[in-house]
């Protein structure tokens, strides 16, 4: 009676899903591939270098810090790579090459590893790093160029909302905004490429539809209602396609670690993100509010989880 395998004795659940963290993260990398390709087509090989450096810096920092802390090296779970990719795609294509490196180090070291690594960070690392970079180098993080020719241009969002002393500019055609032929961050302009990847993630069950649908729906409803020319005149299609809304709603607000666990909570998260985004876009000091809205709702996530926890069957009402 030769025992070839030690018997495993553990508490339930005993069924293990095939979908684990490494598989899910690899799926996100696959889903982001079209956006990376479109970014490189529009903004040239320099954009590829920016994204690549963000990825190298993130994965390198993860590796170095794990070794330094004598902890298990977690670079093989792909999560640092996803952080690096999202960070790179969230940078303007004009940034100097040291900037994605600083961003990658900040994202992994200050936002993720310092709290104990994946699963312990309370903010989305890529977005928090982006917010810090915007605060540190505001001019460099808001220098936009048009695709192909690299002439400096405002983003569609800047043309969509009239600012003080400026008239309402003509935003680009919907088709250009859909395929990504506008100024913006490397990976945010092409709605088409992002949606292809998002569809893949939804089909694979990596992300829940509730957060992106609630997020984008809220933005559409509120921007339509509070139009620049009066009630219900807002150009909500342009508001959906412009800026980082699709990238943020599908890829970053849905981060497993920093979004609510309950289904109801996810709807609240999406609505909250949408409201904050529109507040900043229409009445705030910045043209774009997607990244700040997601960061703020990340902070609210433990609270949402607490108040949307389902009541166990038969338990007393509080």
């Amino acid at each position: 009676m030769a025992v070839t395998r030690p018997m495993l004795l553990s508490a339930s659940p005993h069924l293990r899903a095939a979908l684990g963290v490494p598989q899910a993260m690899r799926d996100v990398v696959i889903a982001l591939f079209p956006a990376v390709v479109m970014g490189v087509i529009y903004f040239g090989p320099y954009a590829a270098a920016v994204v690549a450096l963000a990825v190298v810096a993130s994965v390198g920092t993860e590796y170095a810090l794990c070794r330094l802390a004598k902890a298990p090296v977690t670079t093989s779970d792909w999560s640092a790579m996803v952080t690096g990719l999202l960070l790179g795609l969230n940078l303007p294509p004009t940034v100097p090459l040291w900037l994605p490196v600083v961003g990658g180090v900040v994202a992994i070291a200050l936002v993720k590893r310092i709290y104990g690594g994946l699963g312990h960070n309370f903010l989305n690392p890529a977005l928090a790093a982006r917010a810090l970079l915007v605060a540190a180098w505001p001019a460099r993080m808001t220098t936009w160029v048009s695709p192909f020719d690299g002439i400096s241009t405002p983003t569609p969002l800047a043309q969509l909302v009239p600012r003080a002393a400026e008239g309402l500019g003509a935003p680009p055609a919907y088709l250009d905004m859909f395929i990504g032929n506008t100024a913006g961050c490397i990976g945010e302009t092409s709605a088409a490429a992002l949606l292809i990847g998002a569809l893949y993630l939804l089909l694979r069950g990596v992300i829940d539809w509730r957060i992106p649908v609630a997020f984008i729906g809220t933005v559409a409803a509120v921007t339509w209602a509070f139009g620049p020319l009066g009630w219900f005149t807002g150009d909500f299609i342009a508001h959906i396609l412009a800026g980082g809304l699709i990238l943020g709603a599908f890829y970053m607000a849905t981060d497993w670690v920093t979004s609510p666990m309950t289904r109801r909570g996810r709807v609240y998260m999406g609505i909250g993100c949408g409201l904050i985004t529109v507040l900043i876009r229409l009445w705030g000091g910045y043209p774009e509010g997607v990244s700040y809205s997601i960061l703020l709702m990340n902070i609210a996530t433990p609270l949402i989880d607490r108040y949307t926890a389902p009541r166990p069957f038969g338990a007393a009402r509080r």
Partner: protein
Amino acid sequence: MLALVKAVRNGIIDENPVFRLVLGLCPSLAVTTAMVNGFWMGMAVIFVLTCSNLFIALIRGVVPSKIRIPAFIVVIATFVTIVDLMMKAYVPEMYKTLGIFIPLIVVNCIIMARAEAFASRNSPIVSVADGVGMGLGFTLSVMVIGAVRELIGTGNLNLFGFALFGQGLGSDPAMVAVLPPGAFITMGLMLALINAAQRRKAKASVGGEA
């Protein structure tokens, strides 16, 4: 004599008000955008802390314990008013920079804590030593925080009108360091570093005994 040295040393290292007791965070975060600001803030705190410790130690026998807190505040407020007017008269530029944080020394936790926990139960001479030590500890801490933030945020270090790095280091300092988020990030990282060093020291001493 040894007790006096110990009291000073205690304030600077073992019970450093900012990094070990985590008191007086309001000025430590708000005025540390430059090292010089930290220096002047520290000077004001040293003066108030030393004088108030001395007077509170002197009157501790005659003040009924029920009204000791209001009595402490009157003593502290007196010296804060002196510092406030002195700085307004002799260093008006710095007074403008530090602004509300000079009058706010009245409610500074470090000063109240030392009055209540130390000066009201010790002799005047030791209390003065405690005030000097705690004040120096505060001054050094805010100067270090200020230096780090100034260096990262402006790429230079201003040593009383003399720029340490001439034209500055690099053309692109990270402005965020001199903004409010930079204060919290710098403070958090420094606390983490000091705690790590402390833990390593504790571990080493335990290992040495075993």
